[in-house]
Each structure stands twice: as structure tokens, then as C-alpha cells.
């Protein structure tokens, strides 16, 4: 039977080390809502989402209460809207209307974000894809809870450089459209290479077309728990370090597995995956950067950071994979800047640059995340940053992403406040040399040689 010390350990993780379930995300297919009539399409989308997820928040709260584990967010992801709206939408405004419907249903159900205002254009764009992409600035400035993502490349298809160029402009335009709120719209917009179909985390969550009608995906979080566990093994060898991370990741993930199974049973929706990512928040003690420091770095960004992050990411997966029956999503360590106090400290100390962050993304999940850059950064430079990150994902057969915020009216040295889980960020300098001729070439970068596996 369970003993006093085990109970105390679990409750200490929850109460003192910020162990929580970051999100229960219900994926909902909207493919059966497709209609050529825009009004009917909007109605069908609202109805399908409302009927599917009306009990999501209540169920999450019940589970949270019964097991004594905080479940921070309840969210929804839907089929990429470019696919759903293609038949009905003739203008960017038509697409933005769908975003407003998503926003309304998210508000009525009580979820804090709804993801899937998305297009998958890794090889080419249909007219609907392009229209949706061009509507993103309008959609994100007119809604509160809608998140948008665009998949620009994959290992199998290469990188769609036309879309990369366009997204540089769209990110700038989204920043302009939301400049009254420190360009907050860009915090809800992410571009991917190798985007997963079952990611529960925002802003990149969407319900892939390979998924079932409805599915429950869960994301756990526990950087604080890993950090505290590592405090006990200071100065020990890498073997001990790695074993400790694995054991801790196992325990954290088991909680996610339990919550996912419970939510799945109570909502009568199949269980999809648990995402093993270590997701930080701006709260003190809930930082991935602090784990890197505990491993032995003065600040995240110091020499050795990439190696430390690589081992952390790998051990988290090794520990977590046995704890869950299905693992998916992004699964690794997130390194957002504004959402992690240790990362913010590292930037402010001058230890962490955009270039080092790019190197770190080679060995961990996701990529350049929640990074504020000067508002006068050229669209072509943003496209260049995106292309670099997409190339890392394409060649290394992993997911990479860019969620970057050109803060209109602000420059290097200033800070920007997003609030809540999105945190705050010092504005980081961008290499000012031009890549315009490169970005303007047009076309796509072919898939790498190792993608031909058949």
C-alpha cells in the first residue's frame, strides 16, 4: 500500500514545485461541417464544437479536485480551418468570420484557447490556404482566444519558400494589427516544420486530418520537480544526473496519463496521447533554464548549454515514454523566452542570444519560441530566421517552430509585457545584415536526400 512518504512526495511536487497538468486539449474534427454556404458553415462549426466540448471545463475541474492536481488549461484544437473553409470562403474577411465563430464558442464553453486557425502548406498553397494565411492578421486582431499555425515545411516535402516569404510579411502585419497590445497577436501565431497532428500545446495545436472525430490529448508540466530532484544530486556524475531526470520524468508523466485516461472515460472521447514536454511558466521555480543551471551552467546560453539541453530532452523522453501508453505531440523540453524566468534572466545578463537559441533548437522540441525582437525588423529578415529554423527541422527530421514577436514601436533594451502564462520578454537584437535576395528567389527548397526512405 501507499505509504506516508510517497504521499508527502507527491503533494510536495504539487504544492511546492509547481507540478501540474498544463492542458487537457480536446481535438475535434470539423471535416463533417464543410459547407459551401458560409452562414451554414459557421453554424455547423459552432454546433459541433459546442456539443463536443461543452463538458470539457467542468470535467477538468472535477478531475483536478478529486486527485488534488491542478489542471491549468482546458483547450480545443480543430481541423485546419483552411481545409474546412475552402469551399465557402471567398475573401479574407470570410475566413476571419470563421475565427470569430471559433472565438465565440471558445468563450461560451470557457476554454482559454482554441487552436486550428491553420494551413498546411509544406509543399504548396491552395487558394484557400493562401487566403487563410492572408486573413491571419485580421483574425488574430479581431479575436481573443483563437490561435493560428502554419506548417511551412517537412522532411518529406522540403520547405515551401514562397510561404516562408509570405509568413515573414504576415507576422509583421499581425504585429502592426495588434500594436496597441504590444503586438500580442504574434504570440498566438506559430509556424512549423514537421508539425505534429496531435499537439495539445498552444499556439500550435490543431486537429490533424489523420485523427479520429474527437480525441483527448494531455500536456504535463514539471520543470520545478526536475530542478528540485537535481538539487539532491549536485556534483554527481552524468549517470546519476540522467537517472534522476528519467525517474522524475516518469512520475510527472504518470500523472498526465492518469488525467488523460480519466478525462477520456468521463467525456467518452478516446484518449490520444500524452505530450511529455517540460513546459515552463513565468512562475518562480517553474523554469527549464533553471534546470540547465542546476546541471551546471551559470546561465542558460553559456558554453555547454546545447549539450545540457540535449541530455535533458533525451532523458525526459526516456523516463516519460514508459509512463504513458501513447506518447506524441511535441514531447521534449520547451525553451520559450518570455514564459521562463530563467531564460529572461539569461537574456538580461547577456548570456543568451538569438543565435544560441537557434543552436539549442537543434536538440530540443519546438524552436524559437516567444522571442521579442525590434518592431522595425524587416519582414525578409523574419523570413530568413524562419527559413533557418525550418531547415533545422527538415534536416534533423524533427519538429521545429518559430513564434517570434516584432514589437511595434519598441527596440533592443526595452521589455514587453504579455501577461499571464505568456509572461514578459526583453527585446533581443536581430542580425541586421540582409537576406532579401535569398528570400525573394521564390519556389521551394527540395526535400533532403535522407527523406527518400522507400
Amino acid at each position: 500500500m501507499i505509504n506516508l512518504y510517497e504521499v508527502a512526495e507527491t503533494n510536495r511536487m504539487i504544492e511546492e514545485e509547481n507540478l501540474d497538468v498544463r492542458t487537457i486539449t480536446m481535438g475535434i474534427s470539423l471535416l463533417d461541417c464543410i459547407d459551401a454556404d458560409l452562414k451554414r458553415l459557421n453554424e455547423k462549426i459552432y454546433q459541433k464544437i459546442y456539443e463536443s466540448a461543452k463538458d470539457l471545463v467542468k470535467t477538468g475541474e472535477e478531475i483536478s479536485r478529486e486527485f488534488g492536481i491542478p489542471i491549468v488549461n482546458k483547450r480545443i484544437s480543430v481541423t485546419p480551418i483552411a481545409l474546412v473553409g475552402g469551399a465557402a470562403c471567398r475573401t479574407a474577411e470570410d475566413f476571419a468570420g470563421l475565427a470569430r465563430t471559433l472565438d465565440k464558442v471558445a468563450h461560451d464553453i470557457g476554454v482559454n484557447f482554441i487552436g486550428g486557425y491553420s494551413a498546411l502548406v509544406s509543399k504548396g498553397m491552395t487558394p484557400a490556404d493562401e487566403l487563410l494565411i492572408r486573413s491571419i492578421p485580421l483574425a488574430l486582431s479581431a479575436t481573443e482566444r483563437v490561435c493560428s499555425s502554419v506548417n511551412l515545411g517537412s522532411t518529406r516535402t522540403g520547405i515551401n519558400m514562397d510561404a516562408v516569404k509570405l509568413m515573414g510579411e504576415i507576422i509583421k502585419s499581425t504585429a502592426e494589427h495588434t500594436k496597441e497590445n504590444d503586438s500580442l497577436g504574434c504570440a498566438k501565431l506559430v509556424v512549423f516544420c514537421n508539425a505534429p497532428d496531435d499537439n495539445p500545446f498552444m499556439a500550435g495545436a490543431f486537429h490533424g486530418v489523420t485523427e479520429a472525430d474527437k480525441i483527448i490529448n494531455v500536456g504535463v508540466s514539471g520543470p520545478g520537480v526536475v530542478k528540485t530532484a537535481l538539487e539532491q544530486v549536485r556534483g554527481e556524475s552524468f549517470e546519476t544526473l540522467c537517472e534522476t531526470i528519467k525517474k522524475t520524468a516518469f512520475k510527472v508523466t504518470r500523472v498526465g496519463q492518469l488525467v488523460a485516461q480519466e478525462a477520456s472515460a468521463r467525456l467518452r472521447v478516446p484518449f490520444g496521447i500524452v505530450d511529455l514536454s517540460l513546459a515552463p511558466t513565468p512562475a518562480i521555480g517553474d523554469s527549464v533554464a533553471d534546470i540547465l543551471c542546476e546541471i551546471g551552467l551559470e546561465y542558460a546560453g553559456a558554453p555547454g548549454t546545447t549539450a545540457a539541453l540535449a541530455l535533458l530532452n533525451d532523458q525526459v523522453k526516456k523516463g516519460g515514454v514508459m509512463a504513458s501508453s501513447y506518447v506524441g505531440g511535441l514531447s521534449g523540453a520547451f525553451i520559450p523566452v518570455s514564459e521562463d524566468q530563467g531564460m529572461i534572466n539569461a537574456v538580461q545578463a547577456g548570456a543568451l542570444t538569438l543565435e544560441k537559441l537557434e543552436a539549442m533548437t537543434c536538440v530540443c522540441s519546438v524552436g524559437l519560441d516567444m522571442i521579442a525582437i525590434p518592431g522595425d525588423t524587416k519582414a525578409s529578415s523574419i523570413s530568413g530566421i524562419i527559413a533557418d529554423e525550418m531547415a533545422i527541422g527538415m534536416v534533423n527530421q524533427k519538429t521545429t517552430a518559430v513564434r517570434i514577436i516584432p514589437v511595434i514601436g519598441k527596440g533592443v533594451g526595452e521589455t514587453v509585457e504579455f501577461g499571464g502564462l505568456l509572461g514578459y520578454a526583453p527585446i533581443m537584437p536581430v542580425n541586421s545584415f540582409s537576406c532579401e535576395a535569398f528570400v525573394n528567389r521564390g519556389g521551394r527548397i527540395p526535400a533532403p536526400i535522407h527523406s527518400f526512405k522507400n
Partner: protein
Amino acid sequence: MEKDMKKTIITVVGKDTVGIIAGVCTYLADNGINILDISQTIVQGYFNMMMIVDMAGCSRQFGDVSDELTELGEEIGVVIKCQKEEIFDKMHRI
């Protein structure tokens, strides 16, 4: 028999005082909740108790019992938490 049980872990933490166990046990008895196991220590004057109980015989909602135990804790001056056993089982047993 085991399958029909609704095992719940009740933890009580706080400054030691007279009547903590009595207060909690009375509440449990009044609500038809059977105690399966109790372990308790005092560390530096702090009372630390864990009970494994079976709520199968209790007709009340889990959330109500949890709230009332929290209130009872506030009266006695301790923190009482009530959690289903699975979270501990999952985390500490393969």
C-alpha cells in the same frame, strides 16, 4: 471486494494539538467512511498524518466531503486534503 472499494487518501498536516485524530475520525464515522489504514508522525512539532479510507459506503459527493474536510481542518487549525488513491498509485507503482 477490493474492486468495489473507493480508496481515498486523506492527509492532515499542521501544528500538533489535542483532538486532531478524534475530530477527523468522528467526521468520517458520521459519513459512513471506513478507515483502512492510518500512519502518523510528528516532525518538529508538526503533525503529519495519512489515512487510507474507503468511501464506498458514503452516499455523499466526493467534492462535498472534500470541502467539509477542508472546513473542518480550518476549525482545528490544520490542513486537510482529500485525494483519490490513483494519483499516488500511478506515480509510485509500476
